């Protein structure tokens, strides 16, 4: 009903509705799929209605004065300018209303802080500009990147329904289990938010914040980073996929097996072509946001990779920059973030793509040796 009214209102106002097919006139918070988010929702509605009632009374008196007590109607002003009892009363009554609001708010807050007895622990780490999820008890973890293509962002392609709210690897969680999130960050402050779960927590470098959720319904829940974290703050979605327990277990087994396979890849003998192929993929996922897919960069903040002194000069220096980052700049240390295979592939790719053609190749084993030597 409300949606229809909003649409009708907008049509009457003659506003452009070019994207009406995808448009959404949601005007309120939604209850969500956890206990906490429903508590928040009911708190929100309670306060909203209290405010509406106070507003109606106050503005009602005011509008009545505006309409009835006009000079143009010859209304003569009254003479009162204070009234102790009235003033005391409208101090005490709001205070009592506030106490009434504070009671349920306190209960909800205490519940939100109770992170004990969790079934799973997931460490969430914010990076510029992606999330990493580590399943603490199961020995695997992965990055979650925005998967919306640049062509959609720059309006060269039509935008899909989940524009900017889609990732390559969502966080998969079991339904009905209490999951404790340990939230931290690698570089700057981010904030992990999924409205449907009622969870928002700042990810702060050097700190580990705790929060939790028990998701009740299977489904896909989307959110975004909510703390300004630099250039791509708007392109850092959170996607949580809640699945039944069996499905989760199967998925977790698969992840554990994949992690093991990835570790074995380090000792494999890699050919130049294999590294280049993997390198292009890994570069586009991890590096292209700043240095661009064509290696042209965005100087002066993000230098070009194409024909630069780093990618065509001394290989050890190149390795050092990628593994350890450059302090005081936006260049992060990727040594901990990426596997040896990906690091080797990216460095090899950067040294040979876009006409850099150095012919240099670095293997995952060499990266491992380099890291161990440090």
């Amino acid at each position, binding site marked *: 009903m409300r949606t229809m009214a909003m649409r009708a209102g*907008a049509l009457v106002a003659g*506003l452009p*509705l070019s*994207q009406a097919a*995808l*448009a*959404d006139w*949601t*005007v*309120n*918070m939604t209850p969500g799929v956890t206990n906490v988010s429903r508590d*928040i929702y009911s*708190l*929100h509605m309670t*306060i909203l209605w209290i405010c509406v009632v106070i507003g109606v009374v*106050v503005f009602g008196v*005011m509008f009545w004065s*505006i309409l009835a*007590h006009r*000079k*143009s109607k010859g209304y*003569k*002003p*009254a003479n*009162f*300018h*204070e009234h102790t009892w009235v*003033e005391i009363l*409208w101090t005490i009554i*709001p*205070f009592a209303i*506030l106490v009434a609001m*504070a009671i349920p*708010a306190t209960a909800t807050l205490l519940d*939100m*802080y109770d992170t004990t007895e969790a079934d799973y622990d997931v460490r969430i780490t914010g990076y510029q500009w992606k999330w990493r999820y580590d399943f603490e008890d199961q020995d695997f973890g992965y990055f979650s990147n925005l998967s919306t293509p640049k062509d959609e*962002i720059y*309006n060269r392609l039509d935008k899909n329904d989940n*524009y900017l709210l889609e990732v390559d690897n969502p966080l998969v969680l079991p339904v009905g289990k209490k999951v404790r999130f340990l939230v931290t960050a690698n*570089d*700057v*402050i981010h*904030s992990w938010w999924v*409205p449907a779960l*009622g969870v*928002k927590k*700042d990810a*702060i470098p*050097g700190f580990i914040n705790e929060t939790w959720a028990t998701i009740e319904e299977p489904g896909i829940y989307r*959110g975004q980073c*909510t*703390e*300004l974290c630099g250039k*791509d703050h*708007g*392109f850092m979605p959170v996607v949580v996929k809640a699945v039944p327990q069996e499905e989760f277990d199967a998925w977790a087994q698969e992840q554990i097996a994949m992690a093991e396979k990835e570790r074995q890849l380090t000792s494999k003998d890699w050919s130049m072509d294999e590294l280049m192929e993997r390198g292009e993929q890994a570069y586009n996922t991890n590096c292209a946001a700043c240095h661009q897919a064509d290696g042209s960069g*965005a100087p*002066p903040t993000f230098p070009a990779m194409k024909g630069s002194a780093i990618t065509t000069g001394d290989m050890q220096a190149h390795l050092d920059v990628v593994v350890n980052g450059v302090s005081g*700049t*936006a260049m992060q240390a990727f040594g901990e973030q990426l596997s040896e295979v990906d690091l080797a592939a990216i460095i090899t790719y950067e040294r040979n793509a876009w006409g850099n053609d150095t012919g240099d190749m670095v293997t995952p084993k060499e990266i491992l040796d380099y890291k161990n030597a440090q």
Partner: protein
Amino acid sequence: MSAVIDTHDTEHAHHGPAKGIQRWLFATNHKDIGTMYLVFSFTMFLLGGAMAMVIRSELFQPGLQIVEPEFFNQMTTMHGLIMVFGAVMPAFVGLANWMVPLMIGAPDMALPRMNNWSFWILPAAFALLVSTLFMEGGAPNFGWTFYAPLSTTYGPPSTTFFIFAIHMMGISSIMGAINVIATILNLRAPGMTFMKMPLFVWTWLITAFLLIAVMPVLAGVVTMMLMDIHFGTSFFDAGGGGDPVLFQHVFWFFGHPEVYIMILPAFGAVSEIIPAFSRKRLFGYASMVYAVGAIALLSFVVWAHHMFTVGMPVAGQLFFMYCTMLIAVPTGVKVFNWVATMFRGSLSFEAPMLFAVAFVILFTIGGFSGLMLAIAPADFQYHDTYFVVAHFHYVLVPGAIFGIFASAYYWLPKWSGHMYDETLAKTHFWMSFIGMNLAFFPMHFLGLAGMPRRIPDYALQFADFNMISSIGAFLFGATQLLFVYIVIKCVLGGEKAPAKPWDGAEGLEWTVPSPAPFHTFSTPPEVK
């Protein structure tokens, strides 16, 4: 009485203003300095507004069309900094310069040469700040809250200039505040006791104390940043034993009182204007004064409500929630008193009154969303979304900006000696009112539906409300050019204003002729 000044001024015409540019460069007259503050702040308002137009243009549709995210972040940062430090604060200092001596029957500000300094630092500071846009690496891009470590470790090279500019603004504000306090405490006319002071003077006295208390805190936090960036300290770097959250605590210890610095003088101005156009004395003068004092004191113990998601202990969370909710009580008292002042008055709706009434209504709506934000568990959903953007624009645009417009129209006849064009002024009001609501009301919906703030591009479900919001913003922005025209037209000519153009107005400023002579009250008026 007015007769005292009229003859006096003509006898001493050689005491009049210097000629040419020197009048302004070396100005020590509170009226000249007040005028310069007002002109400067309006220039900054247009500049900050132009940046808001860039932001709203980019957000008109989903996708990146006009600017890159990097520049978008520079625009949001500069928009915030310029509006807070360049537009709102100097505008109120300008009003204080013009009106405080007139309202308390003083000949000038207590420290006129420092007054000259505190003004002329500002154009230098803002020239420096705006010049960062043209520097290599761009302007500051970390939001007006400049949270570390984004601003310290990852900020552009121009961050150092930004820090220096902030220091200069702080020095200017503190000097302005000292001047206001010295003037109010020392130069009141005989018989003007504290509880007889006009409310605008009261609110500015309290604001000045807030400024002196918190501007050094801001200076401290940017100095710590400077040390972190250039001198190898680790105040905000966890890797060196520091704490990024410390930055936020220190910043908001300044930042929360700062929001009251931007609103209290408007409370005062509106408390002058509503009685004038209601032709009835202000209801509950004493409780208004106590309410302002209570709000100012509470503003020091609620800073962490800007940080509910930062991971504070639950006890801290509860303390800051309860204290924040408490602010609703004195704020409510003020609103009730304004309504009671209008109740059974004899109301007329000239432009100052229109802006003042809109102030009360829209500021109250902003207060309601503020109360919602105070509820910590609910804040987890609102925090850093467009709901917050809607909230603080509802407080600051109708609160600070409409308060300034109301004051400007109310006192413009006194300043210029002419009546402004009432029809144009009412047009200015209605277009501002419609534009402002169209721009900011849909932002509540966007926030509740899940749109984070400070993003240059957004998911498709947010498209329609963003478009409406942008249209409203363009309307609001364009309308402000009308104000320039109205003021210029009024200064150049028009119907002569009598000493007291508003029949319900009270106060010493209406006892001097319009325009107010260059020197007033060289013999103090007697207040009974």
